[in-house]
């Protein structure tokens, strides 16, 4: 379990992390979401013991990161932002170094390296200098060193940043495939990632946690949650349909696009779609598409971090 209490970090005048507290239990995959410079990386650097907090405490399974640093760090696997690695080394010698630091003897090291090589599919580049590797392979080497000691806590700072869609998919699969008794913390500014891998999402803005919930709850905060989109076949129908939809009690508003009507519900109780479906049937409207939205994370993200359009309840 990880317990963070009143964590604060000040760089001169700048308050990078401002009184953050949270707990994470095994099995949770927590996503730190936030604009660049919000304090995600700084928080992770304090969790892993790279930066000393100005105030507050971090406890990793009962080990304080400041007073019992080594015991805490032994339980953590960490991928720093940008995947730093000793470029002149080969993945094999690099992983061997990490495994040795992690306390494995020679035969165990060979075993551990074989294990992570398999998971990360590094076999083909194992004896090539890291500086010659592609971004995707470098990232995989970074992930391999983070999981080589089968850590209880995995801290990954923007693990999929700059990867192509296939590589992103692989990394997410890897994270999801980790056993259920681990704690994973990832930071990202990619919204789709949150829904794809996280069981919990904390939105950080200006050094504060402004929202801490499940990805689903986050979607529900969207004013587009349970909104219904109608795509028409004939453009002339748009105004007529919009007028009729506006008359319904369950409709709050209707937004018109070129071919689409987006109907925002009055209440998020699931009553909108059946009502619209009924209407479509009664009036015998010809539609190309009719579907319900889950909610738009980008809109929620913007409204929470910028104080933009009000978040519907």
């Amino acid at each position, binding site marked *: 379990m990880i317990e963070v209490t009143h964590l604060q970090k000040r760089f001169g005048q700048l308050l990078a992390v401002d009184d953050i507290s949270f707990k994470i239990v095994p099995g949770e995959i927590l996503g730190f979401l936030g604009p660049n410079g919000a304090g995600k990386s700084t928080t992770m650097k304090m969790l892993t013991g790279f*930066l000393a907090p100005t105030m507050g405490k971090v406890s990793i399974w009962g080990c304080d990161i400041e007073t019992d640093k080594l015991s805490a760090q032994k339980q953590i696997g960490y991928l720093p*932002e940008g995947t*730093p690695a000793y470029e002149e080394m080969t993945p094999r010698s690099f992983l061997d*170094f990490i495994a040795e*630091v992690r306390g494995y003897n020679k035969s165990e090291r060979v075993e551990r390296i074989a294990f992570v090589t398999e998971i990360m599919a590094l076999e083909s580049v194992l004896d090539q200098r890291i500086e010659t590797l592609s971004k995707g392979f470098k990232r995989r080497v970074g992930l391999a060193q983070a999981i080589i000691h089968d850590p209880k806590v995995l801290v990954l700072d923007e693990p999929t940043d700059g990867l192509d869609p296939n590589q992103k998919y692989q990394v997410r699969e890897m994270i999801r495939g980790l056993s259920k008794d681990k704690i994973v913390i990832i930071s990202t500014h990619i919204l789709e990632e949150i829904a794809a891998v996280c069981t919990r999402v904390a939105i950080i803005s200006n050094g504060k946690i402004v929202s801490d919930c499940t990805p689903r709850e986050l979607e529900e905060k969207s004013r587009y949650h349970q909104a219904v989109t109608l795509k028409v076949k004939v453009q002339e129908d748009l105004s007529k349909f919009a007028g009729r939809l506006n008359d319904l009690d369950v409709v709050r508003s209707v937004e018109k696009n070129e071919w689409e009507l987006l109907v925002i519900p009055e209440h998020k109780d699931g009553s909108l779609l059946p009502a619209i479906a009924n209407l479509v049937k009664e009036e015998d409207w010809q539609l190309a598409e009719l579907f319900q939205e889950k909610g738009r994370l980008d809109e929620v993200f913007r409204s929470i971090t910028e104080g933009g359009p009000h978040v519907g309840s």
Partner: protein
Amino acid sequence: MLGVNTVLKREFASYFATPIAYVFIFIFLVLSGVFTFYLGNFYERQQADLTPFFSFHPWLYLFLVPAVSMRLWSEERKSGTIELLMTLPLTKLEVIVGKFLAAWFFTGIALLLTFPLWITVNYLGEPDNGVILASYLGSWLMAGGFLAIGSCASALSKSQVIAFILCGVVCLLFILAGFPLVLNAFNDWVPAILVDTIASLSFLTHFTSVSKGVLSLRDILYFFSMIVFWLFTTAVVLELKQAN
């Protein structure tokens, strides 16, 4: 302290993974030859000893040691690997000592590769090999002092150029503190005890006796305390950087 060995091995191998090691050793050997034979009048002296060779070492180290030490921390900071290294279960002491020892052993190897000079004097005459051995040891100890200063300079900055210059300047001060010209300038108006203190802090003062083959406990203690002091300062610098 197991970590020292791990860090040391990795660091040492990294010197030889890049051309740095070979370039450094080549230049070190060429320059020590030039200094010994041209500036040191090795043949003209008609003496079978290596004094001309060793007496130039402080000056040789002045610009070669910063070239080795500048990358110790600056490179880690620049490439971000310092974040990886400092979040591994290693104490700061293990990392600092491991890195320092790697650099020190590396300069030791460069020093050992000057052995043809030793063969030459033994071929030309009958030198006191005890003196030569003591001088080698003393020179290596002095290199350690220079490297420890370099370690601290490198911890201060992300830029290797700044680390190089900073280390060079501090080392120069520690050499000059024992230079007769500098000491004479102080002699007239500064109490003798202060002049002695300044002189006793100098690499030159301690190395002069060493290069003549006199390796006294005082000199050994001096070089070791230089190393300990500057490595400790490195730790303080790293600690401050971690807090900010």
